[in-house]
């Protein structure tokens, strides 16, 4: 007889492991449901609490040339050397441009976790005095700073620091860490909608198919 075509008699069926497992499950239904729900709620909590990374380079084989290069630069100059934070500030008051930018430079340099800043009136950890807008201005409308931080761009420390910079409404903040913050915010909203949508659609389809819906 061909595979799968053999008829299953009652005796064989009752001897099967699946039958016995189902028997125990039905007999102890309350216990099974309570245990699964308890374990499930723990799991659901961890589903939302598990820390994830946005770094797709994580886990790449160490012998790859790019990984070696990245590691060498990271170890010698810090992870922020390749992925610094870019801060753009609008020049609103042309008459007081130097004062404003000077204050911005002071603010960024003084932040905890900042290793150095390059930009108008900023040179590493020092605030300088430059009388005219230098190479860091964009058409005299914006000025930008390159902020080097002590942390890898994907870490919570970096995220918290960049969030603090973003908290200043005069700044537009760019760079990998800033992108990660935006992606997280965007994804959280989309994920919730997506999960709800999938669960609802499946529930509706199953309900219709099981004969309780309006379609027969």
């Amino acid at each position, binding site marked *: 007889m061909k595979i799968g075509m053999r008829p299953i008699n009652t005796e064989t069926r009752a001897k099967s492991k699946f039958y016995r497992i189902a*028997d125990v499950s039905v007999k102890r239904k309350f216990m099974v449901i309570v245990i699964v729900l308890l374990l499930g709620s723990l799991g659901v909590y961890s589903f939302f609490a598990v820390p994830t990374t946005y770094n797709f380079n994580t886990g790449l084989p160490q012998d790859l040339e790019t990984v070696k290069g990245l590691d060498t630069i990271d170890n010698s100059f810090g992870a922020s050397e390749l992925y610094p934070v870019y801060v753009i500030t609008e020049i609103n008051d042309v008459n007081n441009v130097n004062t404003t930018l000077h204050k911005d430079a002071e603010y960024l340099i003084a932040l905890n976790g900042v290793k150095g800043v390059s930009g108008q009136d900023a040179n590493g950890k020092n605030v300088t005095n430059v009388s005219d807008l230098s190479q860091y201005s964009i058409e005299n409308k914006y000025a930008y700073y390159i902020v080097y931080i002590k942390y890898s761009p994907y870490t919570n420390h970096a995220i918290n620091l960049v969030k603090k910079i973003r908290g200043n409404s005069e700044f537009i903040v760019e760079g990998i860490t800033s992108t990660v913050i935006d992606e997280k915010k965007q994804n959280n909203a989309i994920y919730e909608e997506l999960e709800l949508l999938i669960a609802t659609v499946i529930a509706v389809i199953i309900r219709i198919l099981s004969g309780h819906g309006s379609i027969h």
Partner: protein
Amino acid sequence: MLFSVSWTTALLYFISKYILHEAPIYLIPIILFIILFSLGSDYTVFIISRIREESASNERDTAIKNGIASSGKVVSALGIILAVSLGSLSLIPVAFLEQLGIAFIVSLLLFSNFSNNIFTPAMAYKSKMGVK
């Protein structure tokens, strides 16, 4: 399904952290959710329809036990086949695919063996899903 997805995410975190020494990539939980929810519904519908067939000529508990006895083996086998094929991604030395492969192995084995065979009978009995 929710049980499998959520526990897989938790287990993946520990596997990634303590064995692979890397953090899980943010896309993994949502990919798992989408794929397992669809697959899980597929398998559950198959089991429930088998239970419904049995319920035409049997009492509720017998119908459930017969339904699981007939379909449990097939569903478990499908889960194992899928776990092996999708799990082969874990052999690729790129963290994203590696983690996805491991997550598929854990979740499909957990879902097709644990959820379907242990949880579904109890829930089908209590909720009268698919049975008289």
